[in-house]
Structure formats: C-alpha cells, structure tokens
C-alpha cells in the first residue's frame, strides 16, 4: 500500500481562552488516502471545523496554535510550514468550501473575478486566460449560461448557485484535497442533493480526496467511505461508514445515529420515542481532562470512565473506538 496523502498524528490544537488554555483538538490521529472521502461527524463545539482550519493553517491568529503532533501532507510537514509555503498550498493543493456561501464570497466582486483570482495567483495565468477558465469552471459546476453569469455578483445568484461558485473556486487549481465544511447545511434538500451529486462527479473527474464535515449521518452515509466521530476534540470512533452505522462501538456514535428520525425504506405505523443523548457538550473548561468526556451523558458510564481517559480499541475492518465499554456497545 502506498503512503497516505494526508497523515495526521497525535494532533493537539490549543485555544487560549479567558479561563486558560484549552485543547480543542486533543490527540487526534487519522489518515486520508488519495481520492478517498472521509467525513467528520459530531455536534457543534466538538472540534470538527477546528481540525479543518488546523490542516489549512488558518487557525485564529494569537488565539489558536498547533501545540504538538504532526500534519503530514504528501511527505511534507504542514504544522511547521512557513506562512509563505502555506499560501502556496492553500487553494492549490488543499482547498476548502464553507457553510454559508453568501459570507464566504466577496459581495463587491463578480463571481468571474473571484474564480479568476485563484487561477492568476496560483497558476500565473494571464487575465484573459483566467477569465476563460472561469467560464469553463462555471459551466463545469453546471451553472446554466455560464458565459453570461460569469459577470454576475454573488447577490444575483441563489444559495445553491453560490455554493457551486465556491466549489468552482475550490476546484480551480485541481487540488488533491477538498475540505467541505457543512457545505449544504444552509441549503434546501433538493439543492443539497444537486450539490452532493456535483461533488461526487467532481471527485470522479479530478480524483480529489474529500473531507466532509457534517452533523447529518444521512449525508455521511451518502457521501463518505470512512467516518470519524468526534467528541470534545477527541476521536470517539472511526472506521468504515457502513460498518459504524450497522454496529457503532461508541455510545456517542450510537446516540448520534439513533437520535435522528430517519426516513426508512418503508414507513410503519409505529413511532418509537427517539433515543435521547441527554445533556449537552461540556464547556471548553472540561476539555483535556484525563477521563472520558462523554461520561456525563453516557448511559453505560462506570467508575473507570471517570478515572481515566479510554484508549482506542481496534476492531475488524479498521474500526476504532475510544470507549472503555466498546466491546459491550
């Protein structure tokens, strides 16, 4: 087997808050192969987006920093790379699309200018060549009448079209990794289906690996091969999507799957009460403690969980769970 495209090892990202330093990412390791698609799942405040920002070198200045661990991209260490080098990598090798396409596009430039900007910065294309590519890209993300729409401003487009523009910008330089941070949360389901379809097509054409961040297990099942369930900045469980949905080995993943009323193949008359994951994600102050941080919400909790942080237990097929009771789940 060839070396993975991206290898994150024992990553620890710290944020400085009023209450001191909190590890928002705590000992996270994972690998991403070329052309693979993985998904980060979890509630807000579990460090999904922080991981993405860490990889991109976009942690909030002076507040967040990579404290230890390594992010290895195609043999190159990113956690210690200079800002100049990171600028070259961002947009060229690794690019990112965000949740709210309206706030991530610049309202005073046409979409064509914003797509062309990436190409001119990274590939030294001439103005005319970049503009021509921008039209091609808009066409590739299936915006009808690209020739004319390229001169539109973001406000002239619908939410779904803006997200397509974001995808065009992100894929302009044919990156090896595309990070999609909740790319469809702000969109309607039929538009979400179109965007997923487009992302899958683009992945096939360009061979880019996709990291998708989401809280929707359904979306994970449709889009990803492997998933990483995150909780309080830690890896709760990771492994193949089908396998985890079929048999989660961590009470948190189990809760995340069971708490949502999913649409099944055949609807039956009976409606069970939804499984609740009681309580909420603990505050940043709790992060980093040497115990299972899910213990306060877990129905399988024992003394051991409160005394020591659980190690990762491996199962068949590359499934891993950080739970003292993983075997019993």
């Amino acid at each position, binding site marked *: 087997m060839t070396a993975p495209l991206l290898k994150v090892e024992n990553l620890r990202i710290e944020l400085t808050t009023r209450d001191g330093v909190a590890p928002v990412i705590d000992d996270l390791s994972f690998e991403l192969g070329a052309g693979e698609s993985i998904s980060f799942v979890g*509630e*807000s405040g579990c460090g999904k987006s922080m991981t993405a920002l860490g990889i991109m070198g976009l942690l909030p200045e002076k507040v967040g920093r990579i404290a230890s661990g390594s992010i290895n991209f195609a043999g190159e260490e990113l956690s210690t790379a200079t800002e100049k080098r990171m600028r070259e990598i961002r947009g060229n090798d690794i690019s990112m699309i965000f949740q709210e396409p309206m706030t991530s596009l610049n309202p005073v430039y046409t979409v064509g200018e914003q797509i062309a900007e990436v190409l001119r910065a990274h590939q030294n294309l001439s103005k005319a060549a970049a503009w021509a590519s921008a039209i091609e890209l808009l066409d590739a993300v299936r915006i*009808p009448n690209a020739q004319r729409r390229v001169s539109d401003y973001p406000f002239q487009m*619908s*939410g*779904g079209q803006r997200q397509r523009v974001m995808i065009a910008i992100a894929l302009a330089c044919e990156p090896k990794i595309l990070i999609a941070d909740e790319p469809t949360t702000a969109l*309607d*389901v*039929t*538009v*979400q*289906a*179109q965007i*997923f*379809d487009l992302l899958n097509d683009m992945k096939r054409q360009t061979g880019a690996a996709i990291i998708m961040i989401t*809280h*929707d*297990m*359904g*979306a994970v*099942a*449709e*889009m990803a091969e492997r998933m990483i369930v995150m909780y309080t900045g830690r890896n709760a469980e990771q492994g193949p999507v*089908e396998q985890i*949905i079929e048999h989660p080995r961590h009470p948190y993943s189990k*809760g*995340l*799957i069971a*708490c*949502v*009323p*999913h*649409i*099944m*193949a*055949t*609807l039956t*008359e009976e*409606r069970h*009460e*939804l*499984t*609740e*994951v*009681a309580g*909420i*994600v603990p505050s940043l102050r709790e992060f980093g403690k040497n115990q299972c941080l899910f213990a306060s919400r877990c129905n399988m909790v024992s003394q051991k969980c409160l005394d020591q942080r659980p190690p990762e237990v491996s199962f068949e097929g590359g499934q891993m769970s950080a739970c003292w009771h993983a075997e019993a789940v």
Partner: protein
Amino acid sequence: MSIKSEVLLNVEDLTVRFAIKRGGMFGKPKYLYAVDDISFQIKRGETLAIVGESGSGKTTAALAVARLVEAYKGTVDLDGTDFLKLEDEELRQARAKMQFIFQDPYSSLNPRVRAEKIVREPLDNLESGAEEDRQAIVDKLFEAVGLHPEQQRLFPHQFSGGQRQRIGIARALATQPDLIICDEPVSALDVAVQAQILNLLRKLQADFGLTFLFISHDLGVVQHMCDTIAVMYMGKVVEYADRMSLFNNPLHPYTVALLSAVPSVDKKRRAETKRILIPGDPPDPLDLPKGCRFANRCPVAIDRCSKEQPTLNEVTEGHQVACHLVDERAVSPLS
C-alpha cells in the same frame, strides 16, 4: 359540557399577498402571492405538518393562521369561530387558544427578562387568574418542560439552545392553548438536542391533548411527528395526505423528488430509491407561469402542464394531489 367537534382548525382558501413596489408613481401595484388559496384541517389532538423548501410559503401560512401577518382572504376557523374576523378584546382572549413556538430560541426570548417572567407574560397580558395562581402555573410549566425551579431566576443567555427552546415551549403552554403552531422548532438545534425537544413535544401532546400545526423542511422530523402532511410549492399545496400514504406512496413529482433527495442511513432505502434531481430554480414568484408551477422543473411534464393549472383532487380517500398526471389509480407518474 358541550360536545367538541373533531376538527379543531379548519383553514379555507387562505391567501396572503404582499404589495411589491414597482414602477413609477402611477404604476399599478404589484402583488406577490406568498400563500395562494390553500385549505387544510387539523383534528383535535393531532399534528399537521406543512413541508416545503425555502420560499414555498409554509411559514407565511403559519403566520397568517396566527394573525401575525395579515391574510388577504380566506377563513381560519378555530373551534367554531373565524379567527380572522375577531377584533380587539375578543381577539386578545382568542389568542390564548393559539400559541406559537418560534424557530430561533436565541432571538425569540427577550434577553433582559428573567425566564419566569417570560413564561408568565402571556398570563399577565390576558389578566387570567390571580397573581398567586400565576406563579403556581409557572412552577408547573417549568416542571413539565424539564427545567429546574431554581432556573426561573436566570436570564436567557444563561441557558443552552435546547433549554431556551424549552422556555419557549413553556411560554406557549402558559395560556393552556388548544393549538400550538411550531415553526421549525428544532432546526436551530444540534441533532442530539433535537431529539430531546421532539420527545418533549410528543409527551406534552399526549399529556395535555395538544393540537400542533408543525412547519418544517426536515422530512425525517415530519415523518416522526405528524399525522397529516401538506406539501407546499410556490405558495400552493401540491399534495395533502396522511402520514402513511404520503411517505409510502408519494404521488406528486415534487414530493417524490423531495423525498428522494433526503440522504438516508438505511442501506435498503438507498438501494431502492432512485434519486430524482430537479434541475434549475423555482419560477419568479412575481411572474408565475400560467400552468403548473412545478412544470419547468418536472421530469415528466407534458404540454398540458404549462398551459393549465392543476387543481388539488382527491385521488384516493384522504390523499389529494395537484397534478395532471395522477388519477384514481394513485400511481406516481415517475414510477
């Protein structure tokens, strides 16, 4: 004791239009019909969902039912009286019977008012009961929605999103309403917290015999919560059916597409459903087509669809569809 009719809310021909300023001083006023002639009924103790995507008019319809926006025409019959015709004191008293839970628990609670006051406010406004009794009601409500008595003195910012939504629910329950309108009550919450609120709503419904008008875009939630569903597209109801019929035999092409777009964890469903992508965008609401409003995106549209607007017809008992291609055989044109 009077015999209460089975139907609690009967909405007929409800239309809401907004004036859009266009043209010069002498230009004709132009109207946007956000809700165009819709009718539905909710039986006492049941839940009706209005589903649709952004811009379909589902929230406007709910606001019009509660008289938070003005209806242009139609009737909203709540337990025998037309809610839209009431004025002044009568209206104020009638509002006690119909309460609203809002989407965003962050902006729907006054940040400068303590939780207990927020929950008591509807009672104070309606001057119902003695002062001491009101406090007793507030205590009971806090317990019913799963908040601690000592949390009554806190301000909204000291609560989490889920807890705030519980305050919103307690406030809606304060006047012992018959009908509660829930406008996307969980879409602003984290998935694990959503389950807590949905379970709470169902429990309260069983305990107090509540009737819900439930507005949502999330079909999974709707499937779990509702007895009857109205699917809206561009201000019109395109399909109206009970829960089992709608989810197991969707007939309108839009409903079929909408359902097929929902990602699922069920392997069997993923294998069975063919995803129907509907290209393009909905038509301009100011310049609606003459025929079916879905025709330009419909994969099976025929000539007639762009010429003639379909009416909502009952195809089987309790299952209404507005599509030229659906008849009594109740077979979806896409299958």
